[in-house]
């Protein structure tokens, strides 16, 4: 390693330390004044509002802006899908929402996540104390993880693992009530021998069954929002169809909103009301599912939809987006997609395009659709 690069690394780690210490200090304070985190909602029909959220990772080679100014809303009782390729920041967005970003390298550096709690307070989830967050996490906002094989604890029975959540958030319930509720939950998610499964261990169940258990766990406290992080990626198509069917049924039954995170455009089309497309930490396009699928605007969305082969739709050659996702460290100032974009023109080398509303909430961040820029083309 040359002397300069060693110096540079030293410089980076020094700066990182300073920034991380600053954020850790803010996080570790005791007795945070409620005025710091009490906010008001833009629209009362929304369960959650993300506003210019920024989560950075301070790594040894530089700052990775995993989530870089993300804003979108989740309306009550609707399913919003976050779509994008691996590394685009969709999982970090939901970890930020749950305040599960791994510190000290990962830090929420800006923005707001506004949420109305069951007690009626409207709070900013990025700023509330951890003790407050623990009351919300798993209770009002719950999560279904990607890997049903690894996210259950192998040494506890299914029953114990589900009742743990219920016990924690409902201190007034008796042991028998908790057990009844657990068995009821297992029945709701379509497990036929609920009493038997209550006593069995995770390794005795198949992948599809385990994912049902995970769903039961997420439903245990009647959440207002369920985050499903790639819930069917590890499953086979026939099992995937079962699980998607179950999730759709349950959503209507308990009237919760779902934040679905996936890279499978087929699953999104089936489940989502609204779609948010992310690329390299930023939202490139958002709108209703109909907008995105029938009338995609951003060249990345168009490319993504075209590059997926579809059953019973014959194409001689698949469309492919050339190149690959840029290095997350030291992103350019201009549009991140420029180097891969077929339609790029002069304006694209300038500033990063802002999210333009094309009407009815269909927003695109691309200079092609900017009214002022169009003339220059």
């Amino acid at each position, binding site marked *: 390693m040359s002397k300069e690069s060693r110096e540079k690394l030293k410089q980076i780690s020094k700066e990182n330390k300073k920034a991380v210490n600053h954020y850790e200090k803010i996080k570790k304070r005791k007795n945070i004044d409620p005025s710091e985190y009490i906010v008001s909602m833009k629209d009362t029909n929304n369960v959650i509002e993300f506003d210019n959220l920024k989560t950075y990772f301070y790594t040894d080679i530089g700052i990775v802006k995993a989530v870089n100014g993300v804003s979108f809303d989740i309306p009550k009782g609707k399913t919003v899908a976050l779509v994008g*390729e*691996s590394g685009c920041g969709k999982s970090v967005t939901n970890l930020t929402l749950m305040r599960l970003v791994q510190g000290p390298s990962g830090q929420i550096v800006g923005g707001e996540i506004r949420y109305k709690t069951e007690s009626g307070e409207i709070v900013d989830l990025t700023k509330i104390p951890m003790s407050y967050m623990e009351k919300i996490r798993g209770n009002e906002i719950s999560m279904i993880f990607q890997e049903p094989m690894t996210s259950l604890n192998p040494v506890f029975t299914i029953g114990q693992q589900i009742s743990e959540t219920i016990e924690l958030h409902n201190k007034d319930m008796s042991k028998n009530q908790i057990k009844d509720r657990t068995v009821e939950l297992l029945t709701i998610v379509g497990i036929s021998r609920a009493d038997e499964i209550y006593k069995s261990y995770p390794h005795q169940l*198949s*992948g*599809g*069954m385990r994912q049902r258990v995970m769903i039961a766990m997420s439903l245990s406290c009647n959440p207002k929002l369920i985050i499903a992080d790639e819930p069917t990626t590890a499953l*086979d*198509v*026939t*099992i*995937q*169809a*079962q699980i*998607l*069917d179950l999730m759709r049924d349950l959503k209507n039954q308990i009237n919760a909103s779902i934040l679905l995170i996936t*890279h*499978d*455009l*087929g*699953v*999104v*089309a*089936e489940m*989502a009301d609204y779609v948010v497309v992310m690329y390299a930490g930023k939202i490139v396009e958002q709108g209703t*599912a*109909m907008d995105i*699928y*029938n009338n995609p605007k951003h060249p990345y969305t168009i*490319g*993504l*939809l075209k*590059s*997926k*082969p*579809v*059953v*019973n739709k014959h*194409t001689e*050659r*698949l*469309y*492919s*987006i*050339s190149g*690959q*996702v840029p290095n997350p460290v030291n992103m350019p100032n201009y549009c991140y997609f420029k180097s891969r974009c077929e339609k790029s023109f002069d304006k694209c080398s300038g500033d990063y395009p802002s999210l333009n509303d094309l009407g009815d909430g269909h927003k695109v961040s691309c200079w092609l659709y900017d009214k002022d820029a169009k003339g220059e083309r």
Partner: protein
Amino acid sequence: MSSEILQVKNLVKYFPIGTGMSKKNKSVVKSVDGVSFSINRGEIMGLVGESGCGKTTVGRTILRLHDATDGEVIFDGKDIFKLNKSQLRKTRPDMQLIFQDPYSSLSPRIPVGDIIGEAVLEHKIVPKSEYKDYIIKIMKDCGLQEYHISRYPHEFSGGQRQRICIARAIALKPKLIVADEPVSALDVSIQAQIINLLKDLQKEYSLTYLFISHDLSVVEHISDKVGVMYLGNIVEMGSKYDIFKNCMHPYTKALLSSVPIPDPSYKCDRILLKGDIPSASNPPLGCKFNTRCPSVMDICKKVSPEYKDYGNGHMVSCHLYTNSKYEK
């Protein structure tokens, strides 16, 4: 030379599962339980099925990476299982494998040029004087740059690594490539690049592929002929048109209807299969699909159905279509 490059006849592969030290209670997992098919030169055959149905084992046994329990594999006129060690070694360059996970199938300590070239030197594919030019040509054909030759695998992204794996297979001038889920670890936009590359190479080098995948849309795009596997058996096989437009077996129908279509206005009558795939160590009697089949009959639980041709090589094994049923 016959037009068929590969003939698989009644291939069987059981894996023993012992219970500890005792020799009693030895049972077997019937991974592949009588699979027969053939591939013509220059054809792409797709093999689909859910996880645990034995599709990977078929691919590996054909290349004799596993020794088969029973059956025959005739590759290019030679019975693979009857070859001795040196004969097998000579045949190896003709049949290559592309693995699923490009992250774990490349040695992190060897530069890319050597990864691609190691077997080329070993099998003396080209004279030593042309070696370097040959490697660079192969790399360029696979979409890699000349300066990549001295780099190490960790410097590459998933898509590029898969290109290295493909280059390694192509470099030996093979006749048959078994591609075991080559795109399932990749993102959608990269997936399309790799599929296009595989198709281009097939035309350029006149290759034959056995393309193993669980993704039906990818298989439909790339294959000429498709086999659908369930619990160690091929339940239906035919041309791409037969399988995707005119499928007969209830399992194929359910599988096709389970694939999510990326169009929110598309509503289909989905056939939901109940339950999970049964264990391969203790498969159900009769037709193996009888526990999940929506149109199950009494006979399905007793007799396993015949694997029959229903015209133009469209093979189905299901009691719904056997004559005996129509006679009754």
